[in-house]
């Protein structure tokens, strides 16, 4: 609203200027900026086609292989085997084959092209609100870092809801973050490369229909190609039958190998549907009775029939990401991919009342972030920097806090956190963060991750005022030296923030 007002006021002033000068061309030009569709600004790693109507994963090579296999095998079947079979047996065979083929193709395309149930990332306001809640929950109780999980009781079973650092939301139950597509997906089953997409809540039924119909099609083709060869060999002999119809050999080979995997997969998913589990849950054994006597699946409807109906014929939820909608230019949009730093900037702007203590905290956070990130970014290319700097006499951020001794230990850097171990930040170099985060969260953006995690570490540091003030000056001292070391490195906004932080620190 505020922005809209200032825009309108600006427009008013602008129009005043334009009446004075003689360039009316500029005003219409400004209004004609084309509106972007939301898919163009989508933060995940998906590919969009047909102006946002079609949505697929980034790697689609295997999908084209699937398509080629199906088209070629069926094409050969209809061209070489069907005429003979239609003539000598019944013309219904190609008809059934055709129907099956169309069904398979339809369900495959539907699975591959639709939104699997991607959860849109949190807006900056939502993320800030969640952060505030987490801060409040931890604030005065000491330096215990937040677990970033919520527990919820569903139908008598305790389920842990995890916080997704990329999407900045607490994941709903059964949702999971796909590292290949970089999205949280509702009722995440698995990422299928054959289909070129994730399989989740919205396209699971299509996926199941696809593998089921493909099993039937494979068995159908296999059976009738064998029949064709047998019929021919009755007349002409086996070898000449093979010579007359070489395509059949290829089809038999493809179908033979496909049958085992496809039929097996269909059987597996039939079991999953009847027990209302996802592949994810089954592999982890979340609801297995082996885990405990009282462990059961809270989502199951009780009987197989209801479970099947619910999965296959239940209501189809709409897409939550609104790919073809237009981006609202007046609402502040987070620039994808979001990292902790930009979001942090937004949070800071919302906090209008900042006392000196807060400023000190913020500044220290900026400095710590800035200090840690160049190390991480350079880690892959120049690991030497970490070892070199102590020799230069310039202390690393970790070493710095160690040298400060007493006052700085009041900062809760010594507290272990499950995924993001804060001790590694203070005592060891930030290099430790890379493998830990990469492992814990299974994201393939190691450079981004530590930054984001680092950001989330800092709100956990709620130091007591005296401890903080003690830390303030010595940190400022050692870090001003470091700023000199890092300044020539790059013109990052991160470095701007760190410089700003340093200025504030020195003023404390």
């Amino acid at each position: 609203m505020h922005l809209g007002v200032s825009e309108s006021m600006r427009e008013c002033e602008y129009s005043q200027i334009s009446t004075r000068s003689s360039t009316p061309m500029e005003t219409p030009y400004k209004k004609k900026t084309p509106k972007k569709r939301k898919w163009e600004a989508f933060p995940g790693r998906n590919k969009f086609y047909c102006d946002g109507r079609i949505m697929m994963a980034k790697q689609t090579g295997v999908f084209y292989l699937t398509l080629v296999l199906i088209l070629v095998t069926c094409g050969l079947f209809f061209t070489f085997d069907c005429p003979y079979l239609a003539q000598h047996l019944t013309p219904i065979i190609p008809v059934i084959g055709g129907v099956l083929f169309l069904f398979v193709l339809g369900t495959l395309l539907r699975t591959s092209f639709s939104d699997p149930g991607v959860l849109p990332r949190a807006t900056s306001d939502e993320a800030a609100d969640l952060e505030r809640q987490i801060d409040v929950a931890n604030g005065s109780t000491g330096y215990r870092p937040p677990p970033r999980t919520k527990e919820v009781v569903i139908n008598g079973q305790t389920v842990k809801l995890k916080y997704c650092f990329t999407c900045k939301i607490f994941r709903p139950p059964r949702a999971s973050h796909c590292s290949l597509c970089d999205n949280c997906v509702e009722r995440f089953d698995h990422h299928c490369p054959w289909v070129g997409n994730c399989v989740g809540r919205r396209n699971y039924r299509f996926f199941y229909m696809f593998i089921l119909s493909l099993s039937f099609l494979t068995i159908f083709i296999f059976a009738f190609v064998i029949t064709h060869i047998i019929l021919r060999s009755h007349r002409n002999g086996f070898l000449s039958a093979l010579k007359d119809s070489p395509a059949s050999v290829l089809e038999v080979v493809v179908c033979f190998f496909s049958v085992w995997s496809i039929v097996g997969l269909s059987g597996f998913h039939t079991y999953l549907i009847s027990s209302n589990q996802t592949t994810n849950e089954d592999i982890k054994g979340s609801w297995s009775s082996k885990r405990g006597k009282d462990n059961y699946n809270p989502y199951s409807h009780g009987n197989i029939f209801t479970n099947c109906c619910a999965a296959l014929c239940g209501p189809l939820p709409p897409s939550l990401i609104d790919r073809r909608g237009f981006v609202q230019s007046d609402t502040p949009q987070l620039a994808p991919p979001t990292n902790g730093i930009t979001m942090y900037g937004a949070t800071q702007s919302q906090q209008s009342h900042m006392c000196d203590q807060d400023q000190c905290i913020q500044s220290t956070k900026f400095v710590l972030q800035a200090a840690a990130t160049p190390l991480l970014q350079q880690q892959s290319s120049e690991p030497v920097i970490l070892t070199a700097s102590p020799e230069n006499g310039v202390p690393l951020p970790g070493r710095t806090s160690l040298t400060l001794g007493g006052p700085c230990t009041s900062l809760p850097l010594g507290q272990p956190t499950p995924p993001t171990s804060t001790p590694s930040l203070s005592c060891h170099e930030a290099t430790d963060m890379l493998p830990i985060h990469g492992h814990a969260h299974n994201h393939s953006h190691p450079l981004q991750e530590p930054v984001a995690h680092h950001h989330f570490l800092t709100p956990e540091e709620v130091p007591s005022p005296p401890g903080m003030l003690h830390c303030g000056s010595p940190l400022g001292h050692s870090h001003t030296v470091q700023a000199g070391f890092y300044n020539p490195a790059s013109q990052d906004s991160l470095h701007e923030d760190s410089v700003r932080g340093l200025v504030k620190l020195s003023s404390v």
Partner: protein
Amino acid sequence: FLVQTHSLQDLQQPAVSSKVFVQRDYSSGTICRFQTKFPSELESRLDKQQFEETIQTLNNLYAEAEKLGGKSYLEGCLACLTAYTIFLCMETHYEKVLKKIARYIKDQNEKIYAPRGLLLTDPIERGLRVVEVTIFEDRSIGSGR
């Protein structure tokens, strides 16, 4: 010209004071339900009962959208038989209920929330994660936040 800008300022909409987010309630599983707990920030503006009624109605509407019953099964089977092409001309049951929800929220905003300087955002615009309640600065009283 100065006069113009002043009158524009009077006409401008009030600034956003803060936003309250009503999170999802997962205690009944994965169905769409929002917490009915009354947020403390709204205490000065709104009746607890009013708020709870709004959220409860929303919850009921979402339950209706996701209900498993004869009608939804029929729609599902019909869709499957027509290879889901039927949705090119027909709206799904869920989409119909979402439209109903949008109308309800608009109605609630006009009647109850806007007069109190509040605005409900349709959860679908937030990926069904939260019900966002925007609190506007109360200019008439004079003291904002």
